[in-house]
């Protein structure tokens, strides 16, 4: 029992260790939770040491007992522990994102880069935004290189480097295009008259790697010293100095940036047995220490501190280094009796190293030291990413006229940029999250954002990690010295506990080149956003093979959302249309562009295409789209291209996939309605069909009807179930009272409507239909269609023409006579394409058989015209049908044959009754149309050559003969006039006239 209680106590203690970190500061939590359930030996706590020294198996057993008593398993806690061990590496390091406006700048455009920092505790106004701007011509180069650009060497150090890029950017920010020719810098060369310096700290502090003593820097400041606080423009320096950190994004480890490298736990050490006064000639003497580890070796100059040590060995607390070796560090320390200890990195084993002090003694590895016993104080170092200048320092609270001249700011205005930030602070990038410049091809830009992160330090103070953000998060690429080196850790005594701190060497300036952003990056120059929309959603194909087919018209519109300068007018489009019977990503699509007769498929600003879906069954395109199915897929692609820059174009491709449905004949069938037993029916007889083309196969686009007709319209596509019929936008009412084909509840596939209107009026019949089954019993294939048919009301009429019609040159084919040519319509662009003007009343023909045809308008009334009477020169002719044949062989040449026809057209009685019964049409609106026409055919000599020669001279005779009746009347009028005059004059003369 006692043992059980003991085990529970142990287990509860362990759980507390697991849970406690959730309620502690991150630093404390990290230090405590940096353990493993499998390896308790890492615990330095006395209690855990005890436990470790006792029985690990017992601990786990106790933990299992406790969890079991709470009904819990051990596994969830194990996983939680593993997550917590990894937790320190999941911290959010600061980041910065650059946004550009415009996103696709062209040469000469004003472009603004805006930095959006994240995970900084420091407010944006106090962050340092150290911009750098590299022009294409200002690649890094040494003077003397072929590509060295004098104009790029802004700091005049004979190198073109990142410092020049920084100056270029920060000059733009600080000067705000100030016109320096207006300023007089001579009077303020060494003074800061406008008091626009920046450097709020009282004392100078080290900026970057130590190379100077900043205590004396007040009088002679250099860029290695600064009064600009790290992490924030108004930060207070911690008691033990600023600490800056860098995050390794691959490892997830945040390292404190230190000078030099650090040693790690578990390092081998060499302790020399002699006292300090026995080495190298005694106290104060010096000799060389030779170290050799593996393949690395070197020497170290040892100065004997004496007994007790009057001083530490040379470079106390600092690691020694073989300069030519990378990463091989050691440290020399003196023990209390002056003995020398050489500490070697743990990466070297004891067996591989020998250490000799001068020529006196070599020693072998004494063992392995843990971190707690030999902690090494590291020198944390911070670096501003300010431009570095030899002659003056940024952040020294002195912005002299010389500096103003260099940065091109106004020496008499403390805030040249006018944004509330002093000139030197502006050069330091305080709060300047925007950079605007004139874009040139190849420009690259970046920013180093320096500030306090959201992560706390492990130190026992209020400090947060001062960190940097770069636009590409490239802190450790290994290229161009951009590398976090000498990663390690050191142990520091904090609040009486040994705290291990990861540390490494890092210079933010080394990574600037790795974090240049091209404003055109992100694919903008190559990627135009093209969106396509298509209508109708599911077009219907007309698969019939003849005539004027009626497949849905598919329209596709392209929209470009990111055209340069928002101008889509200069966009060049190329369209392709592909078909596939299955919906796939890329496989199986076949080009059917030519098959759909889309017309022009490319061109400037051609942002839309339309085509009629009339793929004939049996054609290759039909097979590509539909195969053997009733539905298929059409993919329309549009490639857009525009001139983006000199020699640079942008491209983008958009596509839309349309599901198409095919039918045999996607048309409305239109016919005269017939009344049978008081109900209207669709007359299926061929002669009742309306609106058909001359070959009777398909509908004309504009159907001619006469007033008083009852039109029946029908859709026979069996897959369609629901219909919406409208006439001139109004729903068509068709009930079961009118026709057995209609329903009282909804519209069906047949409707009837009357044509009551004057000649010239227009009716538009529209039907929408789909295959939706409201009952849900049938499969819905998604078939939809909309068909429109227009009707024009015309007055019934007929016209006599040569049988077979008149050709363009007024001739006819087999009619025996032809139209008289009245003149020629001259085509001014092509005089070989003149069109003859043919008389419709006067014709000419040689003696022989003539065939005259009566053409009806609308054409279908030919089947219903009645009382047709044909006459030739007044004699009634017997004929059937709409054609008359007459023999003119015996008619003398020069004579005229007059052919006439008359008849009438009217609706039948049943139709009139239906109009009255179903639509209340007044009988007065039902009129009978008289049809008549006449033509004159002049019988001429068969020899056309003679006719031409005498044409002019016989015009008068032709006029006389051709228009004989009218000329006779005219002559009669003349004769009567003359007779009247003679009669009157003679009468007057005989009555009152006297000869004088």
């Amino acid at each position, binding site marked *: 029992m006692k043992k059980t209680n003991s085990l529970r106590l142990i287990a509860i203690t362990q759980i507390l260790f697991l849970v406690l970190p959730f309620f502690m500061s991150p630093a404390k939590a990290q230090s405590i939770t940096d353990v493993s359930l499998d390896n308790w030996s890492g615990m330095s706590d006395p209690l855990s040491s005890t436990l470790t020294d006792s029985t690990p198996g017992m601990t786990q057993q106790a933990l299992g007992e406790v969890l079991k008593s709470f009904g819990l398993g051990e596994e969830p806690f194990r996983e939680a522990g593993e997550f917590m061990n990894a937790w320190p590496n999941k911290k959010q390091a600061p980041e910065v994102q650059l946004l550009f406006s415009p996103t696709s700048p062209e040469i000469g455009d004003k472009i603004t880069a805006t930095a959006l920092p994240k995970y900084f505790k420091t407010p944006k106004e106090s962050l340092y935004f150290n911009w750098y701007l590299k022009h294409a011509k200002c690649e890094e180069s040494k003077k003397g290189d072929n590509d060295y650009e004098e104009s790029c060497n802004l700091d005049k150090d004979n190198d073109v480097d990142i410092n020049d890029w920084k100056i270029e950017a920060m000059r733009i920010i600080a000067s705000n295009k100030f016109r320096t020719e207006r300023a007089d810098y001579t009077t303020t060369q060494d003074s800061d008259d406008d008091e626009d310096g920046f450097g709020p700290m009282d004392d100078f502090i080290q900026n970057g790697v130590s190379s100077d003593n900043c205590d004396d820097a007040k009088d002679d400041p250099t860029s290695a010293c600064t009064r600009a606080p790290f992490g924030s423009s108004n930060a207070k320096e911690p008691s033990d100095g600023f600490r800056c950190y860098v995050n390794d994004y691959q490892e997830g480890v945040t390292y404190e940036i230190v000078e030099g490298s650090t040693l790690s736990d578990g390092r081998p050490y060499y302790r020399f047995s002699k006292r300090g006064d026995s080495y190298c000639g005694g106290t104060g003497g010096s000799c060389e220490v030779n170290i050799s580890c593996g393949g690395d070796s070197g020497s170290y100059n040892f100065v004997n501190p004496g007994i007790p040590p009057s001083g530490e060995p040379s470079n106390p607390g600092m690691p020694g280094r073989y300069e030519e070796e990378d990463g091989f560090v050691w440290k020399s320390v003196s023990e209390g009796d002056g003995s020398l200890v050489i500490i070697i990195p743990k990466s070297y084993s004891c067996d591989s190293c020998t250490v000799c002090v001068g020529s006196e003694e070599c020693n072998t590895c004494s063992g392995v030291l843990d971190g707690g016993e030999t902690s090494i104080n590291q020198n944390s170092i911070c670096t501003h990413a300010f431009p570095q200048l030899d002659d003056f320092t940024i952040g020294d609270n002195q912005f002299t006229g010389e500096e103003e001249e260099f940065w091109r700011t106004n020496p008499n205005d403390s805030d040249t940029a006018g944004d509330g930030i002093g000139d030197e602070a502006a050069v330091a990038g305080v709060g300047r999250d925007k950079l605007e410049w004139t874009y040139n091809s190849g420009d690259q830009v970046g920013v180093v954002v320096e500030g306090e992160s959201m992560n706390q330090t492990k130190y026992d103070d209020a400090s947060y990690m001062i960190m940097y953000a770069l636009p590409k998060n490239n802190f450790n690429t290994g290229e161009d010295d951009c590398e976090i080196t000498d990663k390690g850790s050191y142990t520091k005594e904090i609040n009486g506990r040994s705290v291990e701190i990861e540390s490494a060497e890092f210079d933010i300036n080394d990574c600037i080149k790795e974090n240049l952003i091209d404003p055109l990056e992100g694919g903008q120059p190559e990627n135009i956003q093209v969106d396509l929309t298509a209508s109708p959603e599911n077009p219907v194909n007309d698969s019939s093979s003849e005539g004027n087919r009626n497949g849905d018209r598919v329209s596709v519109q392209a929209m470009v959302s990111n055209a340069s300068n928002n101008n889509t007018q200069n966009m060049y489009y190329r369209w392709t249309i592909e078909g596939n019977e299955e919906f796939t990503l890329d496989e199986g699509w076949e080009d059917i562009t030519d098959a759909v007769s889309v017309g022009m498929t490319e061109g400037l600003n051609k942002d839309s295409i339309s085509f009629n879906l009339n793929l004939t069954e049996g054609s290759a395109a039909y097979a590509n789209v539909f195969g053997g199915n009733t539905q298929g897929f059409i993919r329309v692609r549009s490639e857009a291209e525009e001139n983006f820059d000199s020699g640079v174009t942008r491209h983008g491709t958009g596509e839309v996939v349309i599901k198409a449905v095919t039918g045999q004949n996607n048309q409305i069938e239109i016919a005269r309605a017939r009344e049978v037993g008081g109900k209207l029916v669709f007359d299926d007889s061929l002669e009742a069909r309306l609106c058909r083309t001359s070959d009777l196969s398909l509908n004309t686009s504009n159907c001619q009807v006469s007033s008083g007709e009852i039109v029946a319209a029908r859709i026979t596509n069996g897959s369609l179930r629901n219909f919406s019929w409208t006439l001139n936008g109004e729903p068509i009412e068709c009930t079961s009272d009118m026709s057995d084909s209609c329903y009282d509840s909804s519209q069906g596939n047949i409707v009837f409507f009357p044509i009551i209107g004057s000649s010239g009026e227009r009716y538009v019949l529209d039907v929408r239909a789909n295959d939706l089954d409201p009952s849900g019993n049938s499969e819905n294939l998604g078939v939809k269609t909309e068909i429109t048919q227009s009707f024009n009301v015309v007055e019934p009429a007929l016209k006599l023409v040569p049988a077979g019609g008149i050709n363009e040159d007024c001739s006819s084919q087999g009619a025996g006579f032809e139209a008289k040519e009245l003149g020629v319509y001259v085509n001014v662009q092509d005089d070989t394409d003149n069109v003859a003007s043919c008389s419709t009343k006067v014709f000419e023909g040689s003696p022989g058989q003539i065939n005259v045809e009566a053409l009806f308008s609308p054409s279908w009334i030919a089947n219903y015209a009645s009382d047709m009477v044909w006459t030739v020169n007044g004699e009634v002719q017997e004929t059937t049908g709409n054609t008359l044949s007459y023999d003119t062989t015996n008619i003398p040449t020069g004579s005229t044959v007059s052919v006439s026809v008359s008849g009438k057209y009217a609706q039948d009685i049943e139709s009139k009754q239906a109009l009255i019964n179903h639509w209340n049409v007044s009988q007065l609106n039902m009129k009978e149309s008289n049809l008549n026409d006449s033509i004159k055919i002049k019988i001429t000599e068969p020899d056309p050559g003679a006719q031409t020669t005498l044409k002019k001279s016989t015009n008068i*005779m032709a006029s006389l003969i051709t228009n004989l009746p009218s000329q006779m009347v*005219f002559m009669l009028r*003349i004769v009567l*006039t003359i007779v009247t005059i*003679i009669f009157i*004059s*003679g009468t*007057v*003369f005989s009555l009152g006239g*006297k000869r004088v």
Partner: protein
Amino acid sequence: MGIKKIIKGEIFISLVIMMISLFLYKAFHVSDDFQRIFVAISFVLVLPVLYIKWVLKKPLRDFGLKIGDWKKGLMYGLLSAVILLIIFSLLFWKFDFVEKYYLPVNVIVNFKYFVLRELIVVGFFIALYEFFFRGFVMFYFLEKLSNKYYANIIQASFFYLFLVSMSTFDWARSPYIIVAPLAGLIAQKSGSIIYSAIFTWIVFLILDATFVKMIIQTTLNNQI
């Protein structure tokens, strides 16, 4: 002879017939060449002939339709030709007559049309006009007026009135104006309209031929 008598008597009726003839010739609406010719023949030839034969009951030879004195006809024809030559020379040189006179283009470029025009069209209308103005009008007043030259003036006036009523003046009609009194002189002296008609026809033939030749020559020069 007083005006009253003239108005109430035969002369007035004849004057009205002359004016009605010209008026109807001009005013009667025609729609083609046949009707135009028919109207011309009817009112310029047939109506005067019927009036002479049925109303005045006189032979047509009293109205110039006879051989007459061919010698005087020839002599006054030559004299008139000299006068015309002088006048047309002035017109050609001083008034740029060639630029203003015109003929149908097909007549200029096609000799066949030129011959047809001169023989049929020009000859036909000259014959009609000679009969009406010189024969009917002038010979009627030659008989009625003591001063024979007044008759010539009257017929010329009628002719001018007719030209004015046909259209506004243009240079293409100027030869008619010049020829009219000279033709009247020839007819008056010879007692026949045959010589005046021949004279008028020859004048227009030479004038048109000269004009065509000059046009063609000018065109060729321009081409060269």
